[in-house]
């Protein structure tokens, strides 16, 4: 029986959040009445000429540097020719054989770390948005008519192409999560799949484990969340293995993943899409990023998510470090640790409490250290006030939780008496009900009880 290994490469489109479009000075970005953010350039009027957006070029270089790519000394825009109503010039200005960024790798930390190499990252312009009206499905097939909104047309888009270095759906999701976090932290894109500012196509094939061949691949499109990308990859892998094991072969195809049915359906391709007749865009001169600029951008890069995960992994383990960084709680975590809070305690606190920006961590740390003795409401209030200029831990440290057995005893008795059925069930083995009793006691004491003490008392009482 052959063991099969998935082989996956991704093509990722990232819409940059520059103020203006890639080749004209129209406002870029989400929103706006349809066809209000347009001009002769992005509507392809006769005679209109493109002028590259300098910020978009710099941001693409930044992204390339963050991914360890080489920034080309010369990058050329090409015309990609095809007819489609969302492509008003009849060509898209893209890059072809001389992209802005070449190579690079993203090391993905984890229990089983892996690396994903990049082929290239290049800059291009987005197409306009087509909205299909009528017919119910929102898709072109069966629609009564199609409307075009040119607001999105010409927005800067970075296309990132990975090497086929991904070998499971889970790896794809983790890689994308880390890449997305990196992009967001660079401040160059919101990278939201649900808004289309991040789009991912997957090239999927399988091969016998241990082999290094690259077999015929399927291209998967229209997956609008990381989870669906993972499920799409799984579906393609399953189907390809079935085909091979049934003695068949895999033909090159493009599919849409249908999350409702967990199946792949053939993607409808644009007509005459096979030969784009690329040639160098004569309206633009080649980009030649000055080395000084590249070095300045490199020096300005923040510490990247992958590096921070590696750094925190020593203290809290790689899974929790991952959680800290991808939820952007790690600055709060680090600040608390810096103020002497224990690493585990700081992790729990940073992950569970909505610490506001600008919090006074020196004072907050005092509260955290005393947290187990404080009333829950005091803790919540302290976190909420921690960014106030006059925030002082002392105000909250006095509000200790009730740990007095004499005071809590009668409340516990009353709660148990009121819930005889649950008590019976607990004794019958449903120990998960302990949390329910704790909750009831906290409610009765208006949150003033020390949950840890309540917990111990309840356990004693119920096992007695």
């Amino acid at each position, binding site marked *: 029986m052959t063991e099969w290994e998935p082989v996956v490469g991704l093509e990722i489109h990232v819409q940059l959040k520059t103020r203006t479009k890639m080749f004209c000075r129209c406002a870029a970005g989400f929103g706006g009445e349809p066809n209000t953010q347009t001009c*002769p350039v992005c*509507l*392809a*009027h*006769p*005679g*209109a*000429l*493109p*002028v*590259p957006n300098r910020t978009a070029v710099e941001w693409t270089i930044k992204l390339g540097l963050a991914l360890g790519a080489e920034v080309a000394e010369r990058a050329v825009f090409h*015309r990609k*020719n095809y*007819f489609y*109503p969302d492509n*008003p*010039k*009849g*060509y898209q200005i893209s890059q072809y054989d001389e992209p802005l960024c070449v190579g690079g790798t993203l090391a993905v930390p984890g229990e089983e770390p892996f690396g994903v190499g990049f082929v290239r990252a290049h800059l291009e312009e987005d197409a306009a948005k087509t909205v299909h009206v009528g017919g119910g499905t929102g898709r072109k097939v069966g629609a009564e008519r199609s409307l*075009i909104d040119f607001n999105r047309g010409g927005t800067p888009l970075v296309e990132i192409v990975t090497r086929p270095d991904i070998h499971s759906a889970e790896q794809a999701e983790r890689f994308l999560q880390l890449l997305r976090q990196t992009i967001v932290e660079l401040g160059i894109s919101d990278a939201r799949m649900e808004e289309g500012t991040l789009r991912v196509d997957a090239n999927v094939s399988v091969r016998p484990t241990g082999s290094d061949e690259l077999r015929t691949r399927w291209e998967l499109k229209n997956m609008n969340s990381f989870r669906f990308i993972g499920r799409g990859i799984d579906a393609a892998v399953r189907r390809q293995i079935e085909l091979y094991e049934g003695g068949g072969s895999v033909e090159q195809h493009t599919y849409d993943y249908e999350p409702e049915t967990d199946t792949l359906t053939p993607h409808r391709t644009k*007509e005459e899409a*096979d*030969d784009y*007749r*690329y*040639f160098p865009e*004569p*309206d*633009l*001169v080649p980009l030649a990023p000055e080395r000084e600029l590249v070095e300045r951008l490199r020096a300005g890069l923040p510490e990247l998510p992958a590096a921070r995960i590696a750094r925190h992994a020593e203290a809290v383990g790689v899974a929790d470090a991952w959680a800290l960084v991808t939820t952007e709680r790690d600055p709060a975590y680090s600040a608390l640790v810096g103020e002497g809070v224990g690493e585990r305690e700081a992790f729990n606190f940073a992950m569970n409490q909505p610490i506001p920006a600008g919090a006074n961590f020196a004072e907050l740390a005092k509260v955290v250290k005393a947290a187990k003795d404080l009333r829950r409401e005091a803790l919540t209030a302290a976190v909420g006030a921690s960014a106030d200029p006059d925030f002082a831990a002392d105000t909250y440290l006095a509000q200790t939780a009730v740990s007095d057995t004499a005071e809590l005893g009668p409340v516990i008795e009353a709660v148990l008496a009121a819930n005889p059925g649950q008590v019976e069930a607990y004794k019958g083995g449903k120990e998960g009900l302990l949390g329910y009793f704790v909750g009831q006691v906290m409610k009765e004491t208006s949150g003033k009880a020390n949950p840890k003490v309540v917990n111990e008392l309840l356990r004693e009482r119920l096992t007695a």
Partner: protein
Amino acid sequence: MIDTLRLTAEELEGLLTRGEVSSQEVFEAYRAAIDERDGELHCFLRLHDGEGEGIPIALKDVIGTNGVETTAGSQILAGYVPVYDSTVAARCKARGLRLLGKTNTDEFAMGSSTENSAFGPSRNPWDPSRVPGGSGGGSAAAVAAGMTPWALGSDTGGSIKQPSALCGNVGLRPTYGTVSRYGIVAFASSLDQVGPVAKTVRDNAFLYSVIAGRDPADSTTVDLPPTEIPEAEDLKGLRIGVPVEMRDAPGIEPGVADAVARAVALCEELGAEVEECSLPRSVEYGLPCYYLIAPAEASSNLARYDGVRYGYRAAGDDLTEVYERTRDEGFGDEPKRRIMLGTYALSAGYYEAFYGKAQQVRTMIIREHAEVFERCDLIVSATSPTVAFEIGARADDPLAMYASDLLTIPSCMAGLPGLSIPCGLSEGLPVGLQLIGPQLSENTLFRAGHALERALEFDFVPERLQ
């Protein structure tokens, strides 16, 4: 009385400055000339009562004008009214130059006679049975017939120089990158340049100074030295080359060769050092190479005319049918021919052999010219191998028509400036002398052109209109 046939823009400027005529009187005089002669010559596609207190001007209809229909001579743009001014139109406006109207052109500037205009050909003021050249025949003929003191044209492979030669006036194709292409209906982006057509070299230089200069809206434009309006009447210190392959090219009419030879002799009399030089590969491969690169770029530039957003739209049952019928009905034969050629040249499997190879040849042409300009300040040749030909004579023979640009194309491919000035008559029709210099040598071309113009004493008013 304003003699529109004879007055130069410079002279008009003097009359206006001294208050001898009003700008309205000047404008009306040209309108009267148009009323009188354009019925026969058909230089204007439409007239316009522009704003401004300065000298009137006519613009080739590939030059976008805000609020004024701009068709590029094509049915597919009939009714298209730009919502913005091209940079050159805006610069003319800013100087107060008052728009008289838009002039006829071969469709999308593809042609050498204006016979490819969707709106009918223009005629040569020297002999209305003949073509005025093209594609900017409307502008050149309008200047020659006193219907505008000067005009702007656009030149991809000879569309300013060749009509100026055939109509007996002064046309400049500037160095690529000196004049903004923003707002110019594109034919072949790496070759298109806007330039002036005028009665004299000094007028031409002045109009060039109005339109030239870096434009942030056109990334391919460059900073350039200030334009000098020429005064010198000699050619002392200039080294002038005569490329033998252009002098001896097949198809040059004897009358044209004689007039050019006399002009070359005059160069020596005026103090220039004249010597033979050689551009063998540029002359041999320039034309075929041009007919790969220009159509390739055109096939892409003309893709936007799809009937979706503006211009002509044919009805169809689905998107593909709308595209196909719009483009079939909207484009004439010549754009279709070039779209087909260009699409083929760029297609997978053919790119390297055609477009890719043509780009290599283009680099070779650039180098060959650069070598010549190490020894020469400028080179001279005939602009057109022939004088104006009969309307219809080459209309059914695209290759014969393409050969009209044999001598103008090589320097266009090299991005170099070229000035055509009239240097005499052959069979009663004007002969053009082409002066070509290295990049940004416009001032040298103006200087040499002006000195020759003075010495040649060519009368730019067509005999039949005198």
